[in-house]
């Protein structure tokens, strides 16, 4: 029996392996679901993964290896720098890819083969500004961001948004992804007279900042958390009290709150049953991406150019994360949610959805 192979270049090892693992699980679940539902017109689908580590060079190697196998479609990682590095190769190879990196710079390359599965960082920044200024109604904002492509870029986007809306950024502090002591940053925030604090980071540093924020007595300053705020992987690291005065911006809200409710609930249940962890934004968008690619394969067959054209024309696809549709710059997901915690629980409810118009 023939099978159709789809490529995926993901960070399986190295510091980004956390996101990589969820991505892989999302794809694995999709593989299972597609094949049990009859596969691609009777053929089985299989995802072939290659590791990208944290190196651009290795990421390109991984991509080229998959490209060499003449696969009809390839998934890339969620790391903007890797996506940027691979972009010229994608153009050369003329193969459609989906990626999860939020960086606006990738979209600006105007590469017709690149499809972004997650909300871009401009949207995320806009939602964050809305959370701080619209929902919390604060004007003096402090930002702490992780020092890397994601953190620096989104902090800058947020700063612009806040200024645009007549607010003021009173402090911008940074930290390294492996930092452990955030007292200097938090003290500067305190001294700056900020009314609200926005944090862009990854799971571990975000959790540590939330913990140390309470220890240092900064719970009076409300905090907007942008990464994994509603996800078990982060919430399991902190205590309930730590969540005092925290709201967040979430890529995906699952379950009943999700616009595609029932589908989403089933996905969460299947995912959790299979991998013993609940899905996060990475797992769900790549699951959706895989499903969309499966649709494309069913409709137009394994031809690279036809798949690209199909995806470029795709609209209103109802996935487990939200509703996808090809838009400007290859963006496919157009909404994120501002969430708040239900008192006494490590669970969130949606305050507001923010879309890119």
């Amino acid at each position, binding site marked *: 029996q023939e099978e159709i192979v789809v490529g995926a270049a993901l960070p*399986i*090892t190295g510091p980004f392996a956390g996101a990589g693992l969820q991505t892989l699980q999302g794809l694995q679940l999709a593989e299972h679901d597609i094949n049990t539902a009859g596969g691609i017109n009777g053929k089985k689908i299989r995802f072939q993964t*290659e*590791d990208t580590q*944290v*190196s*651009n*060079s*290795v990421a*390109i*190697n991984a991509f*080229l*290896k998959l*490209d*060499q196998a003449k696969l009809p479609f390839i998934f890339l990682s969620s790391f*903007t*720098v890797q996506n*940027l*590095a691979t*972009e*010229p190769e994608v153009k050369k190879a003329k193969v459609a890819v989906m990626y999860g990196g939020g*960086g606006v*710079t990738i979209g600006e390359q105007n590469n017709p083969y690149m499809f972004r599965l997650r909300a871009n960082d401009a949207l995320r920044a806009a939602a964050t500004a809305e959370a701080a200024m619209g929902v919390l109604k604060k004007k003096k904002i402090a930002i702490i961001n992780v*020092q*890397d*492509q994601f953190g*620096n*870029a989104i902090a800058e986007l947020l700063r612009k948004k806040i200024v645009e809306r007549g607010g003021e950024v009173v402090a911008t502090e940074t930290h390294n992804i492996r930092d452990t002591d955030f007292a200097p940053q938090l003290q500067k925030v305190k001294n700056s007279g900020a009314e609200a604090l926005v944090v862009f980071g990854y799971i571990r540093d975000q959790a540590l900042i939330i913990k140390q924020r309470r220890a240092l007595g900064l719970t009076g300053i409300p905090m907007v958390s942008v990464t994994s705020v509603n996800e078990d992987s982060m919430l399991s690291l902190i205590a309930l009290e730590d969540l005092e005065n925290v709201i967040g911006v979430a890529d995906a809200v699952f379950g009943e709150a999700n616009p595609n409710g029932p589908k989403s609930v089933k996905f969460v249940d299947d995912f959790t049953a299979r991998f013993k962890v609940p899905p996060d934004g990475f797992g769900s968008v790549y699951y959706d991406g895989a499903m969309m690619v499966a649709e494309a394969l069913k409709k137009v067959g394994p031809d690279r150019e036809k798949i690209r054209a199909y995806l470029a024309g795709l609209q209103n696809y109802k996935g487990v994360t939200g509703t996808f549709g090809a838009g400007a710059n290859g963006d496919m997901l157009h909404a994120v949610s501002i969430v708040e915690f239900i008192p006494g629980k490590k669970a969130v409810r949606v305050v507001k959805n923010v879309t890119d118009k």
Partner: protein
Amino acid sequence: MPGSSIEFRVVILAVVLAILGIATFLSDYDLRLAILAILAAISVIGLYFAFGLAGMIHLAQGAFVGIGAYFSAVLVLRTGLSPWITVLIATAATTLISALLAYPMHRTKSHYLALITVGFNVSFEVIIRNWISMTGGYDGIGGIPLLRIGTPLRSELEFFYIAVAALIVCALIASLLRTSHIGRAMVAVRDDELAAAASGINVARTKTLAFVICSGYGGLSGALYAHYSGFISPDDFSLGRSIILLSMLIVGGEFSILGAIVGAVVLSYLPEWLRFVGGGYMAVFGLLMLGVLIIMPNGIMGSLRSRWRLAMSKDR
């Protein structure tokens, strides 16, 4: 020195020609791996001076590769000079910069020196990431013009030839230096600094020279890389990279130039060869590296050479 026999030279020539010929049949992916291995080999030959000869545990070669890459990329994009020229300028500039950095290392030895280089590499990463106006920060620099000779060949193949040529020149220069009083002085300094000084060797100068030559090779390798990949960002010049580069030398055989090349090729290819292992392939990589160190006392070339010697002595 086996290099002196005519037979040996003929063999080498044949091998080189064969490689160049076989290359035309390779896919772009295979060529890419080969090119990356060759570029790594150039910087590892640099380490052959600093570590193999002068015994300085040098864990910042990644940074010097980065300096070369950024220097050439920025220069080419700002001035519009030909990349051929900027590669040369970048190599020279890396050499000069390393001469300045060599100063604080003058009085330190072994582990202290190793850790200074670690500090230097980490600092380099931080600076490159934050000096956004110059380096583009985390986003890196894209759209760097590629090195072309202007042949109708596939661009990967063309660059492959450029890289092979660069490697041969680098290896040749290295072997000329090794067989001179300069190379001898470096080995002497590694073996016994005190006795070297008493024999009239300026230890500080010799170490500086080894360090500077090493960085020059790194700079060249980096500049070539920039004009090969067209995109550079800080991740490619991390401390981890430096550690792997040094490992390449030791796995290949720290006492020989051929060892530097072999080590670079083996450790460049190994992760790619191991991709079939799946999730745990980097663990296997670590194990294999350890295995090579255990089974082959002086690296791959070291033990090949002693095998060869043993065979020769039995023949007689």
